[in-house]
């Protein structure tokens, strides 16, 4: 038989998330009363247990080793475990910042936590995916749960509208994804990522590889909101409840990048496949350049903090694409740099959105930049946390964001013949531009007088996240070598 019982040991993080998610869905059915604290604790505990299990397994697996599981549907390696630890931590932090927002804005649906963990289980599946089937299934498990979470503020018209837009675009992208996968399967004759690379190199239908690669570029362009396919993102990010926005911007994007690392880095990349250079990589570098630039330029014009962060996250998606390109084009260090960048980006995003939740209150969401005037005089800690996260977004030195960009661009320089040099120049120029709009928020917080008194949303979990994320981001900036070694760079 193909299933080896020992395989279950390798997917303990996945099992923990699934079982906790099922318990939470069940608990909601039998739970009486308004107070959902027990559910939140269970969700946080489950996600943290998943993270701990990932770390334990990370140490079990030798660097560079790959153990295939379940008839080659999944594999266990260090990259997968560090990514699943990241997803679990992001889920736990999202669960911590959610109850305050739910209480304040009155959308206490218990299903939320169950779906959050089940969505995370899809992400963990993506981190370990070794087959087109598991990549497809992981992306769908993650996405369908997020569509629902977007629509969970059921009385809010904007929430429903955001969910509808996100859903229709996501379903459209699924069509492209599936068709692209079908063409790749046709070229390779296998859906296994590990065998696909050599099968594609020997294929008798190179046209199918190119067509399939293009379709996958479109599909993942939608998923991570790269620029010609980004129109849904600002609306969805603004309309969704803020904790869900944080989860979408941080974890969902990271999971999509994890899937791309497997697909473009492993199956479609590397030395064996000359199509990589002219097949999917050429549209990808162009999309990356446009995404970084237009994301930044659009962010400058925004007055709404959530929309500004949405455009900034689009621009960061462009930098991630640069990393994916260099990974597929054979830069050895790109794997570690991408993971480092993902960790820094995820933590900064969660921190920034936690502050957005903190600042808003019922009936006054305070999402405009002007609403943030004078935050520092009354709530210095929140302003400081936001500043650190924004500096990390902008790639300023003592933060993780700086080293993230540095490592990603350094890997891009490693690509043969300096082919991506122009992309690095564009990326660095845009980093400088982005400082401008991040500093707009910082100036408003520190150098303007408050217009109306702040009535922040207070909760222990929220403040914990607001403190933890900037601290971790700073730590990543102060000891980058230690963190880079963790992620195998």
């Amino acid at each position: 038989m193909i299933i080896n019982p020992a395989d279950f040991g390798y997917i303990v993080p996945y099992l923990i998330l699934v079982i906790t998610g099922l318990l939470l869905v069940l608990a909601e059915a039998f739970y009486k009363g308004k107070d959902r604290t027990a559910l939140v604790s269970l969700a946080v505990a489950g996600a943290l247990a998943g993270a701990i299990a990932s770390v334990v397994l990370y140490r079990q697996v030798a660097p560079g080793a790959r153990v295939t599981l379940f008839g080659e549907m999944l594999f266990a390696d260090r990259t997968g475990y560090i990514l699943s630890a990241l997803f679990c931590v992001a889920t736990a932090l999202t669960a911590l910042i959610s109850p305050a927002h739910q209480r304040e804005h009155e959308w206490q649906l218990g299903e939320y936590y169950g779906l959050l963990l089940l969505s995370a289980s899809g992400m963990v599946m993506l981190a370990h995916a070794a087959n087109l089937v598991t990549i497809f299934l992981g992306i769908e498990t993650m996405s369908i749960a997020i569509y629902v979470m977007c629509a969970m503020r059921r009385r809010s018209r904007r929430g429903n509208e955001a969910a509808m837009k996100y859903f229709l675009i996501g379903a459209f992208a699924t069509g492209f994804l599936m068709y692209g996968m079908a063409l790749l399967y046709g070229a390779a004759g296998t859906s296994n990522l590990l065998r696909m690379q050599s099968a594609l190199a020997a294929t008798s239908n190179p046209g199918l590889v190119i067509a399939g690669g293009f379709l996958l570029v479109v599909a993942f362009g939608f998923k991570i909101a790269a620029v010609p396919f980004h129109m849904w993102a600002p609306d969805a990010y603004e309309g969704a409840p803020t904790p869900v926005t944080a989860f979408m911007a941080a974890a969902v994007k990271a999971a999509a990048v994890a899937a791309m690392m497997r697909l473009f880095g492993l199956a479609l990349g590397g030395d064996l496949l000359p199509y990589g250079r002219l097949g999917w990589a050429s549209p990808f570098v162009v999309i990356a350049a446009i995404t970084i630039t237009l994301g930044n330029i659009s962010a400058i014009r925004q007055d709404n903090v959530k929309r500004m962060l949405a455009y900034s996250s689009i621009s960061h998606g462009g930098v991630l694409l640069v990393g994916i390109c260099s990974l597929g084009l054979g830069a050895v260090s790109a794997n570690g740099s991408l993971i480092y960048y993902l960790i820094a980006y995820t933590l900064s995003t969660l921190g920034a959105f936690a502050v957005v939740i903190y600042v808003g209150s019922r009936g006054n969401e305070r999402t405009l930049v002007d609403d943030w005037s004078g935050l520092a005089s009354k709530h210095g800690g929140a302003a400081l946390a936001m500043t650190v996260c924004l500096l990390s977004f902008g790639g300023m030195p003592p933060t993780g964001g700086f080293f993230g960009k540095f490592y990603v661009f350094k890997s891009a320089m490693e690509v043969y013949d300096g082919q991506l040099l122009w992309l690095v120049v564009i990326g660095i120029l845009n980093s400088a531009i982005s400082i401008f709009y991040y500093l707009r928020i910082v100036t408003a917080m520190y150098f303007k007088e408050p217009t109306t008194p702040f009535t922040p949303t207070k909760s222990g979990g929220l403040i914990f996240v607001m403190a933890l994320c900037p601290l971790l981001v700073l730590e990543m900036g102060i000891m980058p070598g230690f963190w880079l070694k963790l992620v195998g760079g």
Partner: protein
Amino acid sequence: MSDILFKVGYGHFLVLAAVLFLIGMGGVLVRRNALIILMSVELMLNAANMTLLTFARMWGDLSAHTFALIVIAVAAAEAAVGLAIVVAVFRGRRNVDVDKLTALRH
């Protein structure tokens, strides 16, 4: 000409799937009703499935049948959630025209 008509090969099935995919894509891009868009997406997924099964036949590999089965299940789940969202939006504004979703424009 008679070759194209009577010698049906893998290319025929694949082009049929591509045309189906194109029609679905056109439906998503052109139509404004959320339900029709959802149906067009289903057409796209079916086109992908047909491609998958043609290649499965070509390679003599049954694992693609499992893949196709999973795609059908995913399409069902997606349709359920999509229709729920459509109902939720309809409850708020009494129509499901995607061009009229304008609360989020700035």
